[in-house]
């Protein structure tokens, strides 16, 4: 695989002008013949040069419409913001909580717990994170707690994470597992099903 990385500072895309004098970018003898009955129109013209830069080549031609509907753009932005906000909150907790931060011998956020929580947040779609708030635990680990009145929690530590959710006698789950991205995602999916978030 050949990779190249290019930074294009903002500037107008300038096509390389052909060296030959008898080339033209625009047709001088265009005939437009509309075919309304067939819902088609045809342009036959004289063109002898295709001007393509890499930018042009992969720019959509149907630019009359937004890349997606407004509803989609708003929802995608919300998804992104939910994840972004929780990551910012995690960083604030990590940076701001010192020794004894709650006056009861609490310890700052532990490095490994922080990294595990970051992995968990990055692996979780914003639509799921919207249901949760992030809190520090006095022992330097992190806690995800539902925003609504659901009974559930996920505690992310240095090596393990533990979780519990209770919706009714026959709809509950709890456990403690070594932390991994997959294990976290699996537990979170189960919790969301139990709490009726999906």
């Amino acid at each position: 695989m050949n990779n190249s990385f290019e930074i294009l500072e903002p500037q107008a895309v300038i096509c390389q002008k052909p060296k030959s004098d008898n080339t033209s970018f625009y047709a001088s003898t265009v005939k437009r013949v509309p075919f309304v009955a067939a819902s088609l129109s045809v342009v036959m013209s004289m063109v002898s040069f295709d001007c393509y830069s890499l930018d042009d080549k992969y720019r959509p031609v149907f630019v009359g419409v937004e890349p997606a509907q407004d509803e989609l753009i708003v929802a995608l932005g919300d998804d992104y913001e939910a994840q972004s906000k929780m990551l910012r909150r995690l960083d604030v907790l990590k940076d701001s909580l010192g020794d004894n931060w709650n006056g009861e011998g609490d310890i700052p956020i532990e490095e490994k717990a922080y990294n595990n929580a970051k992995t968990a947040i990055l692996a979780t779609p914003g639509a799921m994170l919207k249901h949760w708030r992030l809190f520090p635990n006095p022992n330097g680990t992190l806690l995800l707690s539902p925003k609504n009145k659901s009974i559930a929690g996920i505690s992310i530590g240095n090596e393990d994470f533990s979780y519990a959710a209770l919706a009714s006698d026959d709809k509950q789950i709890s456990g403690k597992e070594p932390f991994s991205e997959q294990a976290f995602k699996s537990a979170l999916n189960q919790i969301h099903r139990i709490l009726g978030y999906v």
Partner: protein
Amino acid sequence: MAIKNPYPLEEHRTFKRTFLQQTEVTLRFTPVINDVDFRNRMLPYLKTVFNLDLTGKVDAEANHAEINSDNEQKKFVFDLNQAKFIIGPSSYNTFKETAIPMVGMLVRFIADVAEVEAIDELSVVKINIWPIKSEDAFSSFTNMIRYTFKESCVSDMLSYKFDDNPKPVRLSKTSDTTIAESVGLDAVLSAEVVSKEKVNLGLALNASARNIGINDILSDAITLNDIIYRGFIESVSENIIDFMSREKLS
């Protein structure tokens, strides 16, 4: 040649919503058609395939034809050495349903106008754009890149830093992968600050194959689309896959 797809055959996931902005299929061939043959052969071709009668209306020097639908986002372009079509987002359903019938119309051009038994290159291009809005696009820029693409694909882009007076910027990253003999997949991942509040993340995938017999064009186009699907899944983050797949938007 008929392309052998080295990737395991898998059924394409059906997404609930898509950010596909453009689909393009191009057939390039030699020898180049001469101008006179092009004009003479295009007339019956357009009549047969598009039901368009241009008798007496063709420019005497025409060597290029574009056919645009008035009510759909579909466009055909015919030149002396290539034929292609472009489909916009509102007219695209699935590749087999929307694009393959149009590939068939290009194949007819190859047989009736180019009059060749094989083409030099067949390429399928799909362009996706994810527009993400945020209160401060500059400070969120790299997070948005990480949010949209698999981190392994964009780790170098994530090192980009704005200075104290940030200006709109466009980062792009290209990769070309040899899939099999005469078959390749080019990818362009891009991230562009469009305004203070908006970033466009883009992924253009171009799967192409060389030396294709006319009878293999349809099936090879489907295989190239399969290769693009695989490239898409390998480039885009789980966040985006989840967003496109889930039942409800919020």
